[in-house]
């Protein structure tokens, strides 16, 4: 019973991620609407909340899902911003600046989602820092 329930919740999570990516794609290709941002955030929180194995690891999974779900939006914003700011430059320069803008936008989104996950789930049992802490303890 628990296994079926977990699989069902995982399926809901995957469908919600799909909706999130669709949302991001919609924002990239249609007229930008501000309400899309809170809806995307709510969808993201729903994904993380609904999948069982993410319990206690919400912060790290928010990071990973944000990374993938914002790809269409960040790519479109990178292209638009660079095309607006640099009217006529080398193609290679344009591509490099698009990557830079992409990385900056991604950083801002990751920080924002990390803040949100800290508010909703302050207690985490994720082991992201475990290896470095073991290294530090071993070297003392």
């Amino acid at each position, binding site marked *: 019973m628990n296994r079926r329930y977990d699989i069902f919740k995982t399926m809901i999570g995957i469908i919600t991620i799909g909706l999130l990516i669709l949302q991001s794609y919609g924002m990239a290709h249609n007229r930008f609407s501000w309400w899309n941002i809170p809806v995307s955030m709510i969808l993201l929180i729903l994904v993380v909340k609904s999948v069982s194995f993410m319990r206690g690891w919400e*912060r790290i999974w928010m990071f990973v899902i944000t990374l993938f779900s914002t790809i269409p939006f960040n790519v479109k914003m990178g292209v638009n911003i660079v095309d607006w700011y640099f009217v006529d430059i080398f193609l290679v*320069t344009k591509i*490099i600046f698009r990557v830079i803008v992409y990385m*900056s936008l991604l950083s801002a989104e990751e920080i924002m989602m990390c803040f949100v996950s800290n508010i909703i789930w302050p207690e985490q049992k994720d082991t*992201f820092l475990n*290896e*470095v802490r073991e290294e530090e303890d071993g070297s003392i």
Partner: protein
Amino acid sequence: MRGVPKINIDGRYPCKANWVILKSTKNGIAARNCLNQETVKLTDRQAKYLMRLDGNRNPCKIKGFTKQECEEYYDYLDSEVLIRDEGRTLHADGIMLHTVYIPERKYAGTIIPKILNSLLWLTFLPVFLYGLFRISRYDIEFGMNCNYFFANVITGIVGGLLLGMILHEVGHAIACLANIKGAFLEAGFMIRGILPGAYVMIDATDVTNRRKKAQIYLAGIEVNLLLSGLLMILMTSVRENSFLGEWKIAMLYAVVQNVILALINISLVENFDGEHTMRALFGGSIVDAAKANLKQMFSAKKRRNYFRKNGINGIANICTSMVVLVFQIFIPLLILAEISIFVGGVFS
């Protein structure tokens, strides 16, 4: 130990460094060096000796200490960078720091920083977004034939950058002082390689709330976005024939400089504000954690153990680690972009 004993960094003799915070603990005195983030244990005698170094006393002739003690303690404290003997200009790791201001009190005594900080984090995003809205809504005529075009460009770029950098650091200082356990140690100008900048030395180690600590590191970016928003609103509000109307191009360039400053600082590059923010939210250095996690992938045995311990969540750890390390190429990429602009300009 709150407050700063009166030290004279312009004095004839070396003095106790203002970036040192002394705390009494069960095991003695802990001297936290906020310059290199290390904590050193001192004996009571060593701490007393350090407190006596105010820049006006000869460190070899401190009352109550023998000559041998003075020499021994001075050498030890100097090796731990707890003594300031270079005056106002310091050299550390290829960076030149020139101190302009050392506050008399490390910790805020009033509620003003708290009010300013609250205003900052509440208003920066609405003001920035409203500025963007106004830019998109209203047509701005810049008047390319205006009399002061060249002056506008220089003022916008240089002035915008200078103002942005200074206010960025002021933001960090205010956010730190808004917390009762945050210390503001000094402020000044620096040169990193050939690049000038401003800096503030703050200590947020005792701020235990992760979100408040993260907000201290984000405060600089918040100020840059707030300034950009205010300039965008001003740019779309001034009348064409007014005095400020002649300086719209300068405002536009200043907005761009501040947005670029914010975008660069928010990246997850080590020692940038974005990485410091994530460090505060995660509770440790994400770059070091990423390197340690990826090291486990190089050997089959370590890899097996890693996924046995972490299960499917180990995949999230590895994914995050890879992204964090990819971010470290941000600055080389920026330099490459600048070079390609130059190369493009030469060949076109």
